[in-house]
């Protein structure tokens, strides 16, 4: 038998040296000197407003689902911060390859809220709006968007464009081959992608601890040769620093980065889920103490950057904006049945034109 080298540390697990970045603690108090851009507060107020709007938009979506006006909807309650940050920091001609819980980021990218509603209302036109630019649509099959992201980034490199891709995914998604294969490609080819893992601690009912045996999810980058970092995902200042640097780094030809933003899914997985079946209310209560909106609000109040009057105005304004989107959504007439056939191929084949006629005549057979 071999000498057992185990005790001597032959087999070591990497992990401990993943940096963790935070600026504001859960009480909204700075824990280190803020970066210069954060000092005049303008950008912070913008982030605050964007998060408040996202939260209201989210609340409304759930309300519509509950009243039969929308299908299954995945709330982003509690994880608004990463989206408003990357959404602000990306340039318009950068590309976002999102997952399905990215409404806050999509709004900042210019997507109409009514389009977001339309999508979750079961209408393909919700991914067609001009506001998307060249961004990818919501991606439902977990982690598959990561592969698209490296493809888009490769296209940029092939064409010598200084554009960047940001792709997001959940903690659960980091277990899936697509994510890991894409990460490996990004490391091997040094393409301009930022992988943003929104670790909200749950993949439906599977807690982070059961998803992966590593200390951090960021360190998935290690095996791909991609630098990695953890960041407080409820702290817009830290997110801004980390995502901003990653985007700039990528834009300057230095390749990909993996960012793990630590946050918490304060809501059910979707409106079809009941999280009380599998998690402790006490955990959720604690998580509420760390949530991003209140934290930033406290900071803004404490530093005279925000007032109750402004808050009142914002709430009214946001309610109005969201209500308008709701109405646009509700007033959208259904598609024509032509549309079910028209986009299968650039030119609709004879066989499909025949089937469309069948459908128009209420028939279905050869």
């Amino acid at each position: 038998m071999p000498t057992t080298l185990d005790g001597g540390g032959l087999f070591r697990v990497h992990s401990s040296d993943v940096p963790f970045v935070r600026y504001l603690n859960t009480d909204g108090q700075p824990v280190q000197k803020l970066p210069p851009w954060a000092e005049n507060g303008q950008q912070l107020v913008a982030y605050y407003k964007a998060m408040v709007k996202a939260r209201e938009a989210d609340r409304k979506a759930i309300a519509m689902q509950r009243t039969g006006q929308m299908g299954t909807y995945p709330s982003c309650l509690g994880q608004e911060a990463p989206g408003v940050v990357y959404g602000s920091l990306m340039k318009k001609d950068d590309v976002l390859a999102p997952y399905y819980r990215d409404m806050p980021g999509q709004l900042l990218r210019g997507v109409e809220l009514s389009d977001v509603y339309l999508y979750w209302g079961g209408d393909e036109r919700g991914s067609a709006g001009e506001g998307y630019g060249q961004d990818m649509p919501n991606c439902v099959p977990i982690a598959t968007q990561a592969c698209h992201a490296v493809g888009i980034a490769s296209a940029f490199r092939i064409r010598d464009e200084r554009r960047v891709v940001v792709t997001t995914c959940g903690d659960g998604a980091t277990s899936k081959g697509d994510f890991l294969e894409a990460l490996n490609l990004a490391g091997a080819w040094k393409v301009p992608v930022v992988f943003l893992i929104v670790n909200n601690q749950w993949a439906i009912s599977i807690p982070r601890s059961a998803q992966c045996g590593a200390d951090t999810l960021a360190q998935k980058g290690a095996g791909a040769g991609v630098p990695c970092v953890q960041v407080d995902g409820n702290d817009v200042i830290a997110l801004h620093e980390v995502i901003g640097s990653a985007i700039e780094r990528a834009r300057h030809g230095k390749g990909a980065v993996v960012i793990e933003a630590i946050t918490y899914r304060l809501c059910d997985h979707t409106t079809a889920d009941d999280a009380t079946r599998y998690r402790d209310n006490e955990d959720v209560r604690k998580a509420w103490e760390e949530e991003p909106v209140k934290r930033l609000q406290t900071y803004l109040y404490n530093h005279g950057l925000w007032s109750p009057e402004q808050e009142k105005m914002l709430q009214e304004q946001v309610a109005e904006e969201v209500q308008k989107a709701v109405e646009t959504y509700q007033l959208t007439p259904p598609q024509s049945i032509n549309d079910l056939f028209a986009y299968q191929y650039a030119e609709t084949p004879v066989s499909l034109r025949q089937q469309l006629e069948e459908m128009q005549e209420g028939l279905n057979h050869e």
Partner: protein
Amino acid sequence: MSDDKKTLVEAVNLALDHALADDKDVVLLGEDVGTNGGVFRATQDLKDKYGLKRVMDTPLAETMIAGMTIGMATQGLKPVAEIQFMGFIFACMEQLVGHAARMRNRTRGRLTCPMVIRAPFGGGIHAPEHHSESTEALFAHIPGLRVVIPSSPVRAYGLLRSAIDDPDPVIFLEPKRIYRVQRQTLPKQGSRLPLDTCFTLKEGSDLTLVTWGACVRECQEVTRNLAKEGVGVELIDVATIKPLDMDTILASVRKTGRCVIVHEAARSFGVGAEIAARVSTELFHELRAPVQRVAGYDITMPYYRMEDHYMPSVGQIASACQIVCSC
């Protein structure tokens, strides 16, 4: 088994429960099958009852789930893996086609894959994209696999018990649209149904209506309506899609001379094509009317706001029946 009636998804749950109780080699695995009991509650309470070692929540990785299930099966376990929705089964394809379907043949019986992959499938529940597909034809084409689709609580119970017993890999597809629409008293605990025989749900001599899965409901309605008009429909629930029991179908069409096939999956290159081809060729002289298929259009499943336009309807099925009867 007690008298209380069960839905299809409850029948699945009960079949799993009894299989776990009867055979210590049976284990369950998948995403959210443990504490959460499955997103449709098909595995509800089973983790508490049989423990973490036998009801396993996995990380989010369908390729791995399929491959792991294969590995377990080669060790003589009888793993039953859940893929949360059939729309996410594609990442399993390499493992299922390349390994599960071949292990017995490749090793000349030395290693086998007594395993079941369960997945809810089909449209009609207003779910998001990728949650409504029917791609049974992809598996039906692969030698070495079995494909089984129940259409009632009784058949869900009996077929799932047989699928778990079966020494070969079974893709067990559960039509989620009818997970909870019907309650039935289940037969005696432990009763099995054969995996090689179609179910003739109603006898008739004028027309053979061949279907499976959720479409059985619409076909039953059409059958009842036609009965009122004096047309005797023989209604066949194929249920065991692969290997396909053509004998039952051919015997029926030999009698009726007419055949309509109904399925939710896209029409072209669907399972209906094989049945239509076989019926047409083998009963060339007996057929009184051309075989008709009523199926999904050859388009991507529409998002839910328009999905009703896609689904084969009672009206469409009735009109296809009319056509063949008027020949």
